[in-house]
């Protein structure tokens, strides 16, 4: 078993501000084998309370889900609008 895995993290809406410059197609992360979704959230420095909807591929996952090599983790925040104002 390899010692590390490489995953891609994609951020949406307000969370895009956590994407480093030049990573617009997704943040490539190298994590130790056995790393969880929570480890990935922490690695991209998103406050835990803002990482509510976590999706690998097209399926909802929990923070404790163990990531596999090559996984694409998408993190969607809730959106407030509608538009009035």
């Amino acid at each position, binding site marked *: 078993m390899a010692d590390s895995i490489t995953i891609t993290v994609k951020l949406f809406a307000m969370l895009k501000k956590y994407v480093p410059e030049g990573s617009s197609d997704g943040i490539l992360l190298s994590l130790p084998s056995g790393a969880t979704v929570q480890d990935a959230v922490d690695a991209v420095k998103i406050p835990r*309370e803002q990482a509510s909807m976590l999706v690998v591929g097209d399926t909802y996952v929990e923070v404790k889900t163990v990531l596999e090599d090559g996984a694409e983790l*998408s993190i969607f925040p809730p959106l*407030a609008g509608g538009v009035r104002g």
Partner: protein
Amino acid sequence: MAKTYKELMDDARQIVPEVTIDDVKAQMGNGAKPMLLDVREREEYREGHLEGAVPLPRGFLEMRIEETVPDKSTPIIAYCAGGVRSLIAARTLKEMGYEHVTSMSDGYTAWKNAGYKWVADRQFTQEQMTRYARHFTLPEVGEQGQAKLLDAKVLCVGAGGLGSPVALYLAAAGVGTIGIVDHDTVDMSNLQRQILHTNDRVGMPKVESAEMTLNALNPDVNVVKFNERLSSENVMRIIKDFDIVVNGCDNFPTRYLINDACVMTKKILVDGSIFQFEGQVTVVDPNDGPCYRCLFPEPPPPGAAPSCAEAGVLGVLPGIVGCMQALEVIKMILGAGKPLVGRMMHFDTLSSEIRVLKLRKDPNCLVCSENPKITELIDYEEFCGLRAVNAA
């Protein structure tokens, strides 16, 4: 050799078994009911037909039967007014390979005269026949679907960026009762996206402006106005007479309020939300699937999710997301297709990417789980941490 009418009918009777109205009545009482095919003209069908009968006028039979009944082993009872057209139709079906076709020999007239159960479709006016002509052509809508739309009652929360396209398309589609909740007045800065309203209505209550626009578009629509801010105190009164609630609000307290109220009253909620260039749509069916709290158990901290007033929004985005919401509403009313229950569509306009995400019901959800901890409406401003912020 040319055949007389009588010879033609006698030939057909050799091929097609005939059944009486009493045979049909007995068969329809059984578990495995045959399909009833009404081959009369649309006008005759509309005035009254056997319950559950599928209309397919004789003149369109060959053209449309394979689309209507793809499985040629389906048992079919064809009927018309007196048993002649249905006998000829049934013979044609036999020739096309339908294996179990019979004709009701004494026809609908005898059925009705015997006092057996029949139903009449909604009678449309000539104007409605023209207005909804494109719907009538769609098998998924048809006259029965249009009648469902006209009978439907949909509440739009917000007459703003999302509520505008939702209400306009629902009105155009003939949704008979549209409620609008909004306590705001039309502002010039709204007109970049809120297409219910117009330049000369700046300063007018949005519900008034919405009613004017919707009535001008379709006089079939009864607009019910609620010129008030939705709150824990009034939400149950406002939503009680509606089947479906469409969320086009602009803040988290109202999102959680509407979710909880819809779950508690078992009403369908079509939720839509946007941020700058991205939008999300999902359908909460309290009888089947996750609710908004299953996705987002906690609201984001105040300030972490800026409103569109603060962050800006491309005007066409609420147009797209609102149209998707209107589409989901119409699918739910018609029972057509696969609604976004248990799924969320996320649309990123800048990358032109649409993702449909599979959601899961939270077994520990505070509102929609088997043992919910929240069974009454709460203070949603406080829940979203806004009470302290507003006071500061």
